[in-house]
């Protein structure tokens, strides 16, 4: 089991695909439009199509990859009575009032719905409203959050309960009237669907058809997020963080502060490790929730969600847009290029990149396409390329440690031996009675080729457990100092730990983890140097008005940063500048 876990950990660590950083070269592009003026609150993408919920509780379905949309579940917001409007001027004035009112209401509450419609949208709203349909204003608990259970079945959590569709999201029927805000399909407890509601959790054992409430510790509190971490299910909300291992008994975990828990993200690379975002900070636990500590030094406030891209590359989103970290949540950088809506309600990863709901639109993060005739303003490797080069330097490549396949191959690989023997024997025997002497002798040849699987008779002599390390000195079980060079073939030392030959996988995992840790440091070092260098280059025109000393200081800083980037890219950064020069 341990080996399996390590293999999983290693194969997870070596996945490829997404860029090392979205901060450079990727931009947000608006998708849609959707037939709603309410802010979008959740998105689910599955085989059945795209489902998007809005702040009025409405749900929209697209079966062509987000190109066209239709409303499949009507919103439930209350109507607002308005005076009769007669002129365009009054309509516009009213639209501005609505917009101002909506902005105020959204900024007043962190959990409030952000209706940041444009003036034009508000105008059309007012026209629509005065034009006889009536304007609806979203209440805070009207947000709808869809999830797919499979290609046909979908559920929606919203302010008036839980809704279910069994026909690919075309028709929804209400299956619970308990206001809900989040749903999770748990693989721990025989496929039970768990809903986070305004008062604890609900369970469905039949794919969302019926819902049961069990008296537990989560009752009375609003549950905003659910996550499966290892062999446990976690629920977070305004009462804090809860955990169940059997699906029925919930225990409250301390140490996560007093703000509403907004997101929980398991760390597949660390058993018992996960991150928790509450309204005021980002926390981390390495011991399955026994203790929490601040994940980094930056104040990460207003977070709504977390997701993992790959390895230590994380994304966080919330009231200030999207942030990314390349070192497991220690340092964060904004990913907001061309994102004009700061308040992000939800994020979902797709093979092409992340998709978010922000404002009244869906946004997709995609690589920027550069115009052919555009010249790069700043020479040198891009940030993502620089980080990639830094990570793939000789000595930091973890590909040779990819144990999943190698271990299997090693297990089935035999020991091959060839044995050649040549010998000669000669003898003489004399008999007294027969009075004769016999002589015999000759040369003998013998050859053998052997393929051997398994122990092959070599036998294990030592085990790593027979030795211990203390104060930089190695001792055997009897307390005698041992010279590392005399350990023999059965034991080997990696870093400051001793392993025997049966622990090759564990040793490889340790090395891979150490490499990953250093890659996290490199990410921050390279990103900081790269961003600062580009900022200084961009500031050159304004520095030209300063004194010669100030200009020199500026130029020397740029040169120093380029030299530092050269360190981490084995000179590739400097070479790219030279190549780009005419």
């Amino acid at each position: 089991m341990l080996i399996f876990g390590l293999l999983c950990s290693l194969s997870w660590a070596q996945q490829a695909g997404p860029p090392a950083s979205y901060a450079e070269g990727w931009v947000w592009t608006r998708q849609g439009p959707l037939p709603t003026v309410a802010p979008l609150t959740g998105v689910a993408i599955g085989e059945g199509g795209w489902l998007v919920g809005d702040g009025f509780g409405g749900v929209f379905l697209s079966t062509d990859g987000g190109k066209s949309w239709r409303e499949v579940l009507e919103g439930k917001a209350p109507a607002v009575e308005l005076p009769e409007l007669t002129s365009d001027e009054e309509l516009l004035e009213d639209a501005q009032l609505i917009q101002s009112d909506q902005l105020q209401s959204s900024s007043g509450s962190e959990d409030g719905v952000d209706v940041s419609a444009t003036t034009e949208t508000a105008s059309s709203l007012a026209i629509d409203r005065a034009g006889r349909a009536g304007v609806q204003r979203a209440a805070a608990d009207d947000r709808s959050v869809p999830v797919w259970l499979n290609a046909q079945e979908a559920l929606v959590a919203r302010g008036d309960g839980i809704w279910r569709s069994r026909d690919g999201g075309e028709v929804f029927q209400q299956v619970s009237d308990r206001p809900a805000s989040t749903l999770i399909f748990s693989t721990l407890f025989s496929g039970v669907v768990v809903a986070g509601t305004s008062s604890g959790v609900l369970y469905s054992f039949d794919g969302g058809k019926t819902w049961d409430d069990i008296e537990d510790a989560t009752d009375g509190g609003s549950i905003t997020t659910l996550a499966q971490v290892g062999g446990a299910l976690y629920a977070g909300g305004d009462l804090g963080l809860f955990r169940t291992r059997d699906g029925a008994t919930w225990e409250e975990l301390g140490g996560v502060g007093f703000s509403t828990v907004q997101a929980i993200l398991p760390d597949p690379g660390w058993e018992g490790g996960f991150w928790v975002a509450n309204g005021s900070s980002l926390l981390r636990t390495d011991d399955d929730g026994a203790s929490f500590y601040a994940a980094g030094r930056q104040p990460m406030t207003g977070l709504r969600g977390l997701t993992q891209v790959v390895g230590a590359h994380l994304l966080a989103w919330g009231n200030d847009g999207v942030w990314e970290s390349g070192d497991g949540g220690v340092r964060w950088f904004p990913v907001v290029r061309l994102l004009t809506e700061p308040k992000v309600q939800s994020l979902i990863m797709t093979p092409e990149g992340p998709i978010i709901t922000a404002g009244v639109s869906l946004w997709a993060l995609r690589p920027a396409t550069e115009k052919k005739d555009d010249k790069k303003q700043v020479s040198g490797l891009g940030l993502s390329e620089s980080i990639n080069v830094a990570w793939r330097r000789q000595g930091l490549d973890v590909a040779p440690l990819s144990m999943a396949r190698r271990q299997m191959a090693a297990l089935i690989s035999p020991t091959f031996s060839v044995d050649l023997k040549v010998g000669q024997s000669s003898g003489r025997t004399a008999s007294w009675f027969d009075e004769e002497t016999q002589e015999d002798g000759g040369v003998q040849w013998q050859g053998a080729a052997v393929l051997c699987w398994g122990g092959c008779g070599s036998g294990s002599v030592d085990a790593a457990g027979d030795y211990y390390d203390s104060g930089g000195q190695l001792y055997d079980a009897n307390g005698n100092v041992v010279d590392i060079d005399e350990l023999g073939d059965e034991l080997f030392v990696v870093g400051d730990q001793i392993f025997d030959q049966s622990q090759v996988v564990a040793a490889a995992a340790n090395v891979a983890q150490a490499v990953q840790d250093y890659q996290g440091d490199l990410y921050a070092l390279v990103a900081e140097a790269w961003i600062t260098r580009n900022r200084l280059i961009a500031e050159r025109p304004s520095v030209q008005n300063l004194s010669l000393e100030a200009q020199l200081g500026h130029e020397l800083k740029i040169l120093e940063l380029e030299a530092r980037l050269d360190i981490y890219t084995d000179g590739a950064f400097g070479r790219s500048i030279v190549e780009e020069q005419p």
Partner: protein
Amino acid sequence: MNLLILLLALMGGVHAADNYTSPDQVLARFKEEPEVRAVQQMALEYSQTDPRYLEGWMRASKSANLLPEFQVSYGYSQGYDDGSIYLTDPNNPTGDPLLQPDDTSSGVDWDVDLRAKWRLDKLVMSSERIRVISEAQDVVKLRDKILEEVTRVYFDRRRLQVEMLLNPGDLKAQLKNELRLQELTAQLDAYTGGRFTAALK
């Protein structure tokens, strides 16, 4: 070179700030000195942390198990055996049996055993490979640390040189700066095994 700058400065500020109009002109004053990348390379050579060394290690760790484990043994034995039997002699009044020689044998055996063993599993993954990767990672960290320090010292020195060139100051300040310059030069020499000063000459 440093003393020359100092003397020139003392003699009336030949390179006063107002003689330069752009940073490029000032930095061109130091074009005879090795560039930072050259100094980094010197440090790599001296510390033997150049990536080329790592490539050699990795190649060696891959191919090490292509060679078999050889075992050669030689055996030699020499034997001699005398056989005797007891015979009953009817003419012997005591009735004691007589010991008579029966046969004699002698022999010489030798053999040479040559054994070659390949651990094919170690070609796929071996503890040696993991150790090399671990060591290589440590070398990368060490190299990054050394080069960071070399780069920092190099640019501290360059800033000081620029300061000395543009704002020589009074005699006390000049002496202080000159000592600091020598200290930074010595630090670079320490990281490059003296190659930096050698390149200045």
